[in-house]
């Protein structure tokens, strides 16, 4: 992993590191340290949405066809969706094997 560098100059921070723009946490990438990625088998999926319900990061979104797809910008690869899928349609695959 590359060494972290400063995101922004200290001179540009608001006092107390207050964040002045509401709702900007969506820009905060949380999925970059994921080890496993959920892979959906659409043949098995019944579009029940339990993965969407159980995901602790609320990163599942419904696509145009009605399938629930995890947003990899946020998905941390915890595997809760795969555990709870009643049809075993989600498989956790190691990132380096993809």
């Amino acid at each position, binding site marked *: 992993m590359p060494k972290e560098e400063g995101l922004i100059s*200290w*001179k540009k921070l608001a006092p107390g*590191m*207050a964040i*002045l723009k509401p709702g900007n946490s969506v820009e905060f990438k949380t999925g970059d340290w994921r080890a496993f990625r959920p892979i959906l088998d659409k043949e098995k999926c019944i579009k029940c949405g339990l993965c969407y319900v159980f995901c602790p990061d609320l990163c599942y979104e419904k696509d145009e066809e009605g399938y629930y797809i995890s947003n990899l910008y946020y998905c941390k690869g915890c595997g809760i969706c795969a555990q709870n899928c009643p049809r075993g349609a989600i498989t956790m695959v190691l990132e380096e094997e993809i």
Partner: protein
Amino acid sequence: MKKKLIREVSLEEAKALKIRKKVAKEVSVAIADAVAQCKVDVISAYPITPQTHIVEYLSELVNNGELESEYIPVESEHAAMSACIGASAAGARTFTATSSQGLLFMYEVLFIASALRLPIVMVIANRSISAPISIWNDHSDVMTMRDSGWIQFFAENGQEAVDLIYHSYRIAEKSLFPVAINIDGFILTHVIEPVEFLDQELVDKYVPHLKMNYKLDPKKPVTMGAIGVPEIYTEAKKAQDEAFNSSYKIIINAWKEFEKLTGKRYQPVEIYKMEDAEVALVIMGSLTETAMNAVDLLRDEGKKVGLLRLRLWRPFPLRDFIKAIGKVKAIGVVDRAVSHGATGGPVGIEVRSALYQSNKRPKIVNFIAGLSGRDVTVEDFIELFERTYHAIKTKPTFSYKIYGVKE
């Protein structure tokens, strides 16, 4: 006939001379009165000896309708500081006070108050830390928060404690840092002293209505206390550190403004008979007045001794301190807390570090005295001066001595 020492002054004359009425008050009550004059919005506190009288009296003022503040009788000191943080983040002027274990119980949130840049003012009635359990005075409680990013003052007497309340609100709100005012437990808190207050009109001018640029307001939402990932934490700390060091100027300006209004001069380092001093003691808090008597007695014997008192402890007034030591050959630092396993007491370490890169390199000896309210008398200070004199001719050591301990 006995010479009349006190001249009677007419009211008009007193006004012209800026002489204000002095009132005999217990210092804790006087502090509470000054806090009330600053029109605090929220007081959140938990009682602990020897601080209790301050918040007890404030609760009376609120209860009697004499002070329009929200008084939150919280369940602990951790909650006291947390409530101050919440109120301050919402734009309120806040006050709390504590001592010893109480300060330690709020320790975790102290750092949050300073890092979020909240202008909270707290009085610490300094008391030693358990164990063994003790309610008496030393500085071991506040020294634990040395690195917390709070502006820290030490008062010498009740009058200074009252004036520091006015200063602290102005300084806190201009610098956006919390301020701790240290007063020696019992020695100051429970003593009745003649104290003069600023007229309310002057207080209103000196401590104007608080207006925070960023506050928790649903109409203009901001986030405070967000996560600091490795990519931002260093920058956040750098910003805090730069701002904290530049609070020094705000402190000096607040004191200059106070001098204009009242004629009273406050400085980061107070000196006593330092002009030609060869040997000096460095002290904080109320013991200084006892030490002054020792200086006077030794001066009568022709010994060139002086005193340095740190009023401002954080940010450490480095330049003022180096200037104030003059041409002394030896300094005796009187610490009132033990830093186990360190090279000295907290003040001793600071003084050595401050002078290491300086052109002035007097010998430094470090004493730890007056733990848990044990008296440090005039005779003791004479002894400490003599030991400091002795250091001029001896090899310097990096150790410290716990003074007055029974072998």
